[in-house]
């Protein structure tokens, strides 16, 4: 029963996935097929669809999506870019540094990579092109920097992980993701500046007037405050994650309507309607994945798969590297949240066998996923930034691989020095 059920579940899922079935449906069909064939009780299908998403902690997901979108539509990216330009000044690779830093700050407001990358690429691409940055370079850099959004709190990926893994606190994940996220972002600066110097683009432009710091700061401060409001609210224990999200929504609404005066009724409606569908697309996958997970754990697939993997190697380091490779490949193929849903049931028993800290494990899984988001051929972030920069994904390969390499280095650092991730949550008493 284990072998037959597991085969139907996994082979069925992957076959459907590769022919282009919507991910949720592929998970659902595989799960339902196992429930029916192994006679595990088909009523588990509607029950799990409902209970899979009818969870209060999951409410943070749609609300954080609204918050991120609200700030983005209010034009916070442009103002942050101007302030960063004023601070960094006119130097070789200056705009590349601006791109990375603004992506990281925006990551502290929104929790999804592609939206973050697209916002920064749209604002910066025109001026970067003027300074001679090649289009594929712009696409690669912003895609890579945007991927830090799922590491720097708030993060949609962490919300899903904490809902799926009982006993891991979302506060600890948010706090733990901060240093690895910043580390990953900063590591991109090395190839960014080195490539600019080597190929001689991004040179200081004598005609550019450096914007006055104080004036740009006054505009940007409202955006800069957002991550502080969110993290500070969570930190002080004043807000639960969902409450912090909703406070950010109304703070963004206030800034957009009264300070920047960029949001009108039509734009607010757009924000709500688009966030509704973006959250729906993620949540239906979570709902159907819980059918998949129920079928898999009832039939014993995940334990069997975990045992098989462990039987290949008893060496902890080899296992960690193997997981990294598997997740990187998966990250190239499907989007981040879905990776948690597909791989967590198999990887959690392994993590427990080795006694790994589950907060740290969530963070390195998320780092893996972040890298996958801009590694061709299937990279959600890169797809978006290529569209904005006006180049093909193939043309980015010689550039983007350097950024992949840089972020891989920081991933390995966090993998082998877990304290980088765990230090902050431990300090704050979240572990």
């Amino acid at each position: 029963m284990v072998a037959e059920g597991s085969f139907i579940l996994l082979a069925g899922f992957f076959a459907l996935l590769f022919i282009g079935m919507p991910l949720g449906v592929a998970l659902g069909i595989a799960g339902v097929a196992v429930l029916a064939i192994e006679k595990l009780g088909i009523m588990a299908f509607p029950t799990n669809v409902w209970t899979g998403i009818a969870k209060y902690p999951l409410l943070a997901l749609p609300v954080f999506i609204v918050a991120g979108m609200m700030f983005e539509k209010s034009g916070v990216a442009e103002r942050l870019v101007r302030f960063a330009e004023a601070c960094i000044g006119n130097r070789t690779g200056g705009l590349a540094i601006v791109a990375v830093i603004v992506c990281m700050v925006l990551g502290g407001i929104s929790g999804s990579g592609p939206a973050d990358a697209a916002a920064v690429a749209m604002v910066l691409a025109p001026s970067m092109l003027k300074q001679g940055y090649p289009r594929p370079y712009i696409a690669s850099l912003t895609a890579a920097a945007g991927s830090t959004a799922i590491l720097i709190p708030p993060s949609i990926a962490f919300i899903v992980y904490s809902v799926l893994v009982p006993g891991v606190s979302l506060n600890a994940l948010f706090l733990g993701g901060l240093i690895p996220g910043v580390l990953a972002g900063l590591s991109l600066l090395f190839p960014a500046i080195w490539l600019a110097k080597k190929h001689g683009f991004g040179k200081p432009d004598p005609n550019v007037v450096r914007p006055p710091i104080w004036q740009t700061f006054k505009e940007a401060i409202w955006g800069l405050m957002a991550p502080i409001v969110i993290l500070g609210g969570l930190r002080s224990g004043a807000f639960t994650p969902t409450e912090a999200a909703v406070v950010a929504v109304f703070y963004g609404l206030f800034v957009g309507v009264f300070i920047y005066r960029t949001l009108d009724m039509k734009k607010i409606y757009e924000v709500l309607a688009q966030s509704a569908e973006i959250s729906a697309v993620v949540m239906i996958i979570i709902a159907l994945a819980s059918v998949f997970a129920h079928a898999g754990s009832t039939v014993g697939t995940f334990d069997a798969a975990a045992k098989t993997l462990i039987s290949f190697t008893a060496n902890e380091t080899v296992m960690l590297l193997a997981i990294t490779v598997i997740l990187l490949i998966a990250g190239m193929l499907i989007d981040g949240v879905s990776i948690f849903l597909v791989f967590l049931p198999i990887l959690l028993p392994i993590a427990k066998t080795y006694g790994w800290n589950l907060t740290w494990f969530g963070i390195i899984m998320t780092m893996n996923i972040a890298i996958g988001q801009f590694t061709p051929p299937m990279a959600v972030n890169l797809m978006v930034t290529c569209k904005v920069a006006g180049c093909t994904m193939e043309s980015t390969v010689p550039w983007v691989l350097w950024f992949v390499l840089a972020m891989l280095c920081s991933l390995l650092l966090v993998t082998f020095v877990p304290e980088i991730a765990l230090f902050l949550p431990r300090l704050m008493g979240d572990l």
Partner: protein
Amino acid sequence: MTDHADIQAPGLKLGEAPPAVSESIERIFGAAVMGILCLITFANVLVRYFTNISFAFTEELSVALMVIGALVGTAAAFAGDRHIRLTFLVERMSIPKQRVLELFILAVCLALFGLLTWLATRYVWDEYRFEVLSPGLGIPQWRYTVALPVLSCLICLRILGRFVRVARTVGA
């Protein structure tokens, strides 16, 4: 770049007609659900900080609203092919072949959500028969869960609609 759902999943370009029944129905509904969710949650924060009244029973309402929003958004995403899917391999095929494959895929989706509609109806019927009460407010649970069969029926209609539209492009 205004269409954000596009950012998540660009879908296949099969050249089918736009939906005959506008997706704005779902969009308005989805936006309303999101707006109400934010308002309830924010009211919760305010009430908790400025008074001693517990507003916690709204959790149950929020959660039900969230599920409703998810199902409505799923329907719209089916109409516009904006669900997350792996299109890398399929895009290597010729457009006529992609269209035929798409019909098969939509048929499978329809089967899944058709089954969900039927089983969810039985699920809600059981809750009604056995008078299951909700844990928070103590009102009949079926008043929440009835959304599942009704909205999965809506999802079926959206899948069917796109099936018909893609089918018209085959051989055309």
